[in-house]
């Protein structure tokens, strides 16, 4: 246990997890769910979410065994020096890829929805500079910001879901053909990609005030997005039906658009939601950026992470600028997602390895 009042509190950990997961995917998740799972979208989302909770719990258990080390250090301990460094390099590459593609996806969507004439580069640079400034303060900075912003993010999503109850028509759920087991299994990976962001567990645990309670708070932190996403997919299919949700590029925004108050009390609710969504995207990008910089410093064995923050920002920017259009962004997002799933499964393998070899760290008093 770190000294009193030092380190991340338990709620900050859940908030870090939740706010990293609720990011850019939230506006297009109902479309992915409807395209891959069709009528069974709600149930598939819930199952994918539960699977994510299980994976995150395994990663948290592994982190708890090595509670003073980040992934870089305990992977070299378990896999040996060269394999461990390789795994660490893959993780760093993954973090940089995800940070850049989330940045690009966010800027692209924002340009389409809100800021038509603003050059894409300006949106990306503004977001990247703000994230750089936040991450310079270290993990306590991003944890406090996540803690403050989480109620806003969750509140705005709940508002959209709650106010759309008016337009909800249960008839749209009617052809509930349970998809066959094989098709259900095929669509789960696409949905688990939407829940990625729990990798912050790799580096978070050494900084926690009390690492012993990490597992229940992990479950809480991942459960918040799971519930919200399931409700969102359910609401989107209930309001639009499966066929339309498959066509809409931004179902959540369109859901917010169909909210009307009688007497034109508030007409364009979706603009308000987009503004609150920017906050969600910002926490995700800042968290991923910090993860990338911290792991790269730990891999090189250096001490001050600020250097890597400065060095990584042009790398992320250039990587974000590379995709040419929306379809390429989608392809790279899927690719990054599959790499993330592979990394998660390797980490679960590491957990078994640590059980078998009995390596663990001494309990702190």
């Amino acid at each position: 246990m770190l000294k009193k009042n030092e380190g991340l509190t338990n709620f900050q950990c859940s908030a870090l997890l939740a706010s990293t997961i609720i990011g850019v995917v939230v506006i297009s998740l109902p479309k992915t769910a409807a395209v891959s799972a069709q009528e069974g979208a709600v149930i598939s989302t819930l199952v994918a979410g539960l699977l994510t909770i299980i994976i995150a719990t395994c990663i948290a258990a592994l982190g708890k065994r090595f509670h003073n080390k980040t992934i870089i250090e305990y992977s070299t301990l378990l896999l040996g020096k060269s394999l461990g460094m390789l795994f660490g390099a893959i993780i760093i590459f993954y973090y940089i890829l995800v940070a850049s593609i989330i940045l690009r996806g966010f800027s692209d969507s924002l340009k389409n929805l809100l800021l038509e004439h603003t050059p894409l580069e300006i949106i990306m640079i503004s977001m990247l500079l703000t994230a750089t400034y936040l991450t310079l303060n270290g993990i306590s900075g991003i944890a406090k910001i996540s803690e403050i912003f989480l109620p806003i993010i969750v509140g705005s999503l709940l508002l959209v879901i709650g106010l759309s109850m008016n337009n909800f028509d249960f008839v749209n759920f009617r052809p509930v053909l349970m998809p066959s087991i094989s098709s259900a299994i095929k669509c789960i990976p696409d949905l688990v990609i939407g829940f990625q962001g729990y990798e912050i567990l790799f580096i978070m645990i050494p900084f926690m005030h009390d690492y012993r309670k990490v597992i229940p708070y992990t479950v809480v932190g991942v459960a918040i997005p799971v519930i919200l996403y399931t409700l969102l997919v359910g609401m989107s299919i209930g309001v639009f039906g499966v066929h339309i949700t498959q066509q809409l590029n931004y179902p959540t925004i369109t859901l917010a658009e169909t909210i009307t108050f009688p007497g034109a009390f508030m007409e364009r609710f979706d603009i308000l939601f987009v503004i609150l969504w920017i906050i969600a995207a910002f926490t995700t990008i800042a968290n991923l950026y910090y993860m990338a910089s911290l792991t790269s410093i730990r891999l090189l064995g250096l001490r001050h992470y600020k250097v890597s923050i400065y060095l990584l920002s042009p790398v992320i920017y250039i990587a974000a600028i590379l995709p040419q259009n929306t379809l390429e962004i989608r392809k790279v997002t899927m690719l990054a997602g599959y790499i993330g799933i592979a990394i998660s499964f390797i980490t679960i393998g590491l957990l078994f390895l640590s059980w078998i070899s009995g390596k663990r760290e001494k309990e702190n008093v």
Partner: protein
Amino acid sequence: MYKRILLICLISFCMLIIPGCWDRIEIERNAFILGLGIDLSDDQLLITYQIALLDAFKGEGGEQSKSTQQISIVADSLSEATKDLLSFFGNMPNFSHCKLIVFGEKYAKKGISDSLDFLFRETDMRRVTSVCVADGEAKEILNIEPKTAPSSAIVIDQIITQNSLSNSDIFPFQDIGYIHHNFVRGSDIGLAKVSVDKGIVKVSGAGLFKDYKLIGWYTDHEVTGLRFILGELKEGYHSVHLPWDEGDRITMNAYNINASTIPKITDGNIVVKSRILIEGDITEIGNPVLVNTSERLIKYWQKAIEDDIRSTINSVYKKGRDIYGVDAFEFDQKIESYYPEFWKKNKDNWDELFKTVELDLEIDVKLRRLGIIEP
């Protein structure tokens, strides 16, 4: 020293970013388009834009000045017309408050599917924008300046979305979302009919579309039957003609209508069972003097209203099914909901199948109160 310079550079950069200069459009520079009318002009489209003049919208204002301006542009497509609008009007078109889309009769007869993609894809266009079809030219509808509201588009939109709850002759809630829903499935649609009656707009009746081409009309009374079959009618007035000594003509105000439509497939035969429960009060009796209200009379009136509604619904159904062949009753969606395997096998020949669908009506009318005088 360097820190100070860095600080100044940082603050200047922030000042450049935060105001959001690129997308700044002053509110006076926005041309808010309230209504969009699409007509046919030879081979091209004649698009009429109803643009709000902001002076009339702010404050109560003393004089009755013009509150909207209509501009008509000939172009090949909606996007081109929006671009051409910039040559006519000094402001930037802004669709985010568009309330109404009107299709002209000739254009609707030719087919509306080529302009639908713009309405679905445009970011600013909302899915709750009402859509209707004009009896005549859309341009005339948008050129009307109503005295009670700033623009005809706002009036028609309010009639379609709000007055339709109380008046059963108005075909309600067609918006871009409804059309998109049916367009993706390839279903037929019906749209509310708008016409000009003595210089003001009137919304009643419906136009029927097959393959997104206008092929026929329903009159106002027939729209009531259509709404009964759709099952979404909640309130309405209903009049029945009777023999002189039974009351001549009575009008019922139905305040609670519960209509459910469920298809049933037996041996490949599709029967749609429609169950309508109505509760209402008597609001007007044509011949109150000679009438003695009694239980027998109430039962007689109830039966008369049931028969009248039954014949209305049957004639509406026959007209839709046999004469026009248009499934504006959403039966295909009901069949997909209740019998998904059957629908998967037969959805390609729904047009022929629809002609064999029978309607089985069960109507129950209950008259509760008579108003404040007797009889």
